[in-house]
């Protein structure tokens, strides 16, 4: 087995730590181990580092005040803190609205809440992955405590119109809170919580070149949440536990670099993604785009290879040193294919063979050319094994 990945195109799963981020972090692992809550100046070094990071994250999400930023141990913890925090601060309201294509970390929580007596509406999407805004508007009621939507989808990269969602929700119920899972938007598109009318927003460091194990939650001033982890007074009583100083420093630096890199994402990363996408769709006869052509983050594409199974594609890509991901059932260990692609109504023929390529600012043109060159060969080999030869012949004819 080849352990070393040559071409890493799975940046929506996780990213590599930027060397500049690591360099910022190391002193806080090696030298400045003081507790930020201590009174002596050695602890003060840590407290100051946290304050800098909080400012960097504030600037990254466009918050007004650093008091609105809470550091957590993951994106999932940030989401859980937001959702459970809002619900338990006002237990009279029992209605939640979310979407059918949210990340499992959020969906599974809502399924749990349903068992606890909450009513949850799951809003659908069209074949481009775009949210049914009319259904959303109709769903908001007096009793709606929370509306929860992701900014960008992890599988397709499709962007939801958060500002419009906020306007719709607030026009029907001023008191309903809007929680945005921005884990896949962070570092890919500009985020501004003020401009977009967001009450709570979660991000995860390892999706934008910070290490795993650090996340952050934005909570708009005046939004009341009960803490998930109760204990010490850290994070203004909203998240107990001694601050993970080196990782907080890491997410701060990564946020700063990500903000600086947004222009590069929108131009160069997008150019490479588009090159990969158009080449594969052109040269591979059974390839079809499983996502919206527009309204997408610049780094993600999702291509379905019809009548071929996704795990088999990934295994062969892996043999060639290429890391990608699939919405196929077989890759996850669950037996169900991607709930996102199913909600979009992607046909079974392309659903099981869906392959996601997600780039980063470290992706090079040489890497993209390598994948473009290899993809048709892999698919040719795999279609030869498929029992659906008549259907494949039909597709080949169609393409020609």
């Amino acid at each position, binding site marked *: 087995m080849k352990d070393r990945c040559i071409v890493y195109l799975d940046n929506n799963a996780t990213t590599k730590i930027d060397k500049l981020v690591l360099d910022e972090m190391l002193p806080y692992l090696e030298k400045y181990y003081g507790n930020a809550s201590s009174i002596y100046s050695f602890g003060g070094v840590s407290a100051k580092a946290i304050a800098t990071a909080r400012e960097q994250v504030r600037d990254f999400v466009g918050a007004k005040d650093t008091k609105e930023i809470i550091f957590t141990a993951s994106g999932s913890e940030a989401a859980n803190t937001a959702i459970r925090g809002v619900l338990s601060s006002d237990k009279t309201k029992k209605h939640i609205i979310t979407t059918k294509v949210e990340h499992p970390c959020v969906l599974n929580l809502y399924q749990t809440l349903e068992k606890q007596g909450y009513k949850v509406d799951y809003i659908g999407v069209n074949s481009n992955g775009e949210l049914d805004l009319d259904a959303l508007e109709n769903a908001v009621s007096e009793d709606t405590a929370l509306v929860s939507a992701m900014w960008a989808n992890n599988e397709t990269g499709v962007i939801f119109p958060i500002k419009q969602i906020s306007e719709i929700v607030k026009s029907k119920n001023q008191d309903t809170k809007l929680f945005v899972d921005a884990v896949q938007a962070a570092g890919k598109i500009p985020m501004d919580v003020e401009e977009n009318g967001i009450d709570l927003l979660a991000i995860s460091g390892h999706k934008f070149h910070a290490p795993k194990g650090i996340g952050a939650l934005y909570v708009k001033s005046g939004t009341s949440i009960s803490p998930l982890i109760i204990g010490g007074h850290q994070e203004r009583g909203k998240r107990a536990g001694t601050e993970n100083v080196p990782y907080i420093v890491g997410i701060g630096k990564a946020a700063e670099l990500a903000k600086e890199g947004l222009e590069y994402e929108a131009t160069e990363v997008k150019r490479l993604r588009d090159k990969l996408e158009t080449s594969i769709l052109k040269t591979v006869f059974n390839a079809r785009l499983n996502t919206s052509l527009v309204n997408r983050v610049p780094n993600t594409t999702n291509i379905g290879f019809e009548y071929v*199974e996704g795990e*088999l594609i990934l*295994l062969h890509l892996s043999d060639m040193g290429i890391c990608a991901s699939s919405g*196929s059932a*077989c890759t996850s260990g669950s*037996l169900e294919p991607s709930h996102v692609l199913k909600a979009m109504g992607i046909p079974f023929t392309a659903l099981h063979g869906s392959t996601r390529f997600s780039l980063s600012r470290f992706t090079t043109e040489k890497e993209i050319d390598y994948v473009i060159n290899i993809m048709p060969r892999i698919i040719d080999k795999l279609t030869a094994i498929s*029992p659906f030869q008549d259907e494949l012949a039909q597709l080949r004819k169609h393409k020609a």
Partner: protein
Amino acid sequence: MWDYTEEVMEHYRNPRNVGKIDDADAIGEAGSLACGDALKIYLKIDKNNIVTDAKFQTFGCGSAVASSSILTEMIIGKPLDEVKKITNKDIADKLGGLPPEKMHCSVMGHEALENALENFTTGGKTKAVKDKMVCTCFSVTEHQILSAIKENKLKTLEEVTNYTKAGGACGHCKDNIQAILDKHYHIKHEEEKPKLTQTQKIIKINNIIENQISPELRKDGGDIELIDIDGDNVYVKLRGSCAGCKNSTLTLKSFVESTLRETLGNEIEVIEVQK
């Protein structure tokens, strides 16, 4: 990342005997595109009942391709008697094992082989439907679940899902799968009890038919008549709207037979007398 054996990797990288045999003597299928894996197997069988050639086409993951590929190697050159004895466990063992969640791939290989052999013996005629669908998401029948339980000594719901995929999607059939498991092990347990005398058995069967089965069938405008009992074979006649009903086999097997088996054990066979 799955922990695949070298053997599995070798077979999905370089699958053997890929393709179709145009003049195949038997063709077997398992799975479907919607379910995420589908397999077709083609056999050439000579007059001495020896499998002289086998080819496959698979839509599925690495372990599905590996299971199909190694299966063809296992059967080429073998007499049918030997081929019939191959189980899904043999396929998995030959691959040096499969991850638990992937055992259904070996089951699928075995099912396609079974299907091919069945088509060979019946000359391509499909067998009458007498099986109850348990998992509608993945089209898994009670028979398939039971044989996976028996062959692999499965004990838990999770194991059944790993081996057959049943219950792996919407999960609505999980209770039914658990019931099949419970019933299987419960009945095995009961078998150890002293057996009823033939007279006791006849009285019991008669009582169950009169008091439990007949009233249910009458609700649908039908009825049942006990004709004879010979050992474990129970001969019955369906009447009223049950007679000639397309689902009569289903009624017999999934309702009459299973009700009798609940009390009298798994050996009970219900046979319909036509005239």
